């Protein structure tokens, strides 16, 4: 991660400490020019060569890439993520400040998506090719075709401006439950409905697959009531692909939260990363990239563990 970003703020004409790979990446990367500019932006247009050199020295840019990489990773693992180039504050501190906002938004959205999407998918599957099914399929298609920022703005217009029920700006208040809920409702609904659409569609098709399986016929031949067949025999099998999908889309959701946080002006990783981009705060960006990477890895582990809960054929030893 470090090597990818380290060269961004290295003047592209300066090859004194690069290797062949670094040079190539430097050219390939569209940020190289900006990065060079940023080096001078940060120090001012009139920065002397000596000042630039001092800056490189401080950021360690004059050292080999591998050394930069291992030093950064070593520090990161021991809790030192460095300081923001702009504010000088500890990156880890900044991340820890806003991480709960992004996490609560993401997980409330996912829970909303699961709670609404799975029953919707089952309902649709059970009424296959009937009016209900077509309706659900159409609504979910619309739901997943809308970009998050469009639905966010539509929700704002309806619930905040026309109806006036919910605040326009979600400050992420957490003084009391009602305040917390009012601030979280619209952002979570924005992301949640996207999840609902995806989960409903995957649940529907996976449910239809499972309902035509031999073991469902076996259960019927045993005289098991229909409700038990659907909720006990079929659903557990149908959930396996749904878990895969939720795991994948949790990652997408963390990404989508960037836009949502901006539209609702809500604190979170998304706002932090956009702010860092605007200010060319490369050390902060680097820290945030590492943070996102950790989140994705964590989600994947969680997904794998969930398989074990649902499917007895998956065993971890």
């Amino acid at each position, binding site marked *: 991660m470090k090597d990818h970003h380290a060269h961004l703020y290295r003047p592209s004409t300066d090859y004194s400490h690069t290797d062949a790979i670094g040079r190539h990446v430097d050219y390939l990367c569209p940020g190289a020019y900006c990065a060079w500019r940023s080096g001078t932006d940060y120090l001012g247009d009139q920065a002397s060569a000596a000042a630039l050199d001092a800056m490189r020295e401080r950021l360690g840019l004059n050292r080999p890439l591998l050394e930069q990489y291992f030093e950064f990773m070593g520090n990161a693992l021991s809790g030192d993520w460095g300081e923001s180039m702009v504010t000088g504050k500890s990156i880890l501190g900044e991340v820890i400040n806003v991480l709960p906002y992004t996490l609560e938004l993401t997980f409330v959205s996912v829970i909303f998506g699961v709670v609404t999407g799975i029953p919707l998918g089952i309902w649709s599957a059970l009424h*296959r090719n009937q009016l209900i099914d077509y309706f659900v399929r159409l609504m979910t298609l619309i739901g997943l075709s809308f970009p998050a920022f469009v639905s966010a703005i539509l929700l704002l217009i309806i619930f905040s401006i026309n109806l006036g029920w919910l605040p326009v700006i979600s400050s992420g208040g957490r003084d009391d439950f009602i305040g917390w809920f009012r601030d979280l409702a619209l952002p979570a609904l924005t992301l949640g409905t996207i999840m609902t659409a995806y989960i409903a569609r995957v649940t529907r098709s996976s449910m239809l697959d499972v309902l035509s*399986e*031999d*073991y469902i*016929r*076996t*259960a*019927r*031949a*045993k*005289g*098991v*009531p*229909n409700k*038990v067949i659907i909720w*006990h*025999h079929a659903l*557990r*099998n149908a959930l396996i692909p749904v878990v895969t999908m939720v795991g994948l889309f949790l990652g997408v959701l963390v990404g989508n939260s960037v836009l949502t946080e901006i539209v609702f002006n809500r604190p979170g990783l998304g706002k932090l990363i956009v702010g860092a981009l605007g200010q060319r705060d490369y050390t902060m960006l680097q820290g945030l990239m590492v943070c996102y990477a950790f989140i994705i890895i964590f989600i994947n582990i969680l997904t794998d563990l969930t398989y074990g809960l*649902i*499917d*007895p*054929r998956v065993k971890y030893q």
Partner: protein
Amino acid sequence: MHTMPNSIQSSESNPDIILDVRKLRTSFRIAGEWHAAVRDISFTLRRNETLALVGESGCGKSVTALSVLDLVPSQNGRIEAEQIQFNGRNLLGLSEDEMREIRGNRISMIFQEPMTALNPVLSVGHQVAEALLYHRDMNKEEANRAALELLDQVKIPSASSRFKEYPHQFSGGMRQRVMIAMALACRPDIILADEPTTALDVTIQSQILALLGELKRDTGMSLIFITHNLGVVASIADRVAVMYAGNIVEIADVDSLFAHPTHPYTEALMRSIPRSDRDTETLHSIPGQVPPISRMPDGCRFAARCDLARPICRKLDPALQQINAGSTHEVACWVRGDHDLTAIEDRANG
């Protein structure tokens, strides 16, 4: 299910008959059109009797069994019959709840593929206990205890320690034993066994057959045994119905059938059995293939593959008839049946 007028007298007169199927016709919708996979077949099953349904793939054996339990997919399948009389009660027109009371309780089914017929995410013990849970007034503990006894009864070694295991931890033969335990759970009057040994190797196959025979003797149940393996038929069946393209073409006691195979199709099937006691070089096969369900010919459906076929065979469909008066051996064949062929041909042409 669609009920047709009940014109023939019911089987209540004969308490020995547990299942009396009359004119069962099961159709499937293929590309918008209905085609009959089973065509007006009638048969009876006596108490404690094993009736084998024999025929090649696609002849309607499995569909017949599924129709009895109303398990044909309802979106694209349709069951019609004059009656499906079980224990003096017509199953046609029963509500879904009433049918559910019978499934797995009075009539149960063993499926062909033990690999896919068990739910992969539920424990084997639970799947056996389930039938008891829904049909008997038992709580979970009692049902589990009874299920454990059943697993013992079908001779699953160390059943108590394997009770909580999942199907993927069982071998094919063991899974088929689990299926049998499931079917047996409520001591049904009839078990419909749909090729229960086809997916198994020969030694396991003979163990399963022995087990089924033993259970039938001990419990007094009746068995409809579906297979394409005539060797299996000889070892387990009391009576045999040979099916071809949705029709029963011959039905007889097992001894009579093997002694006097009458329908040309039955004869050809018998010739196709590989035998270790005779020194033959080639294995006989029946030329041609079963006509597709959407393009069934008029008349006898076997005519196109039959050496004995006469013009009448391609025009009129023969009905089952006793091979001679008073016999229980019936055959549906213009040539081999007890017909005055010249009179019939004259009538058909005139």
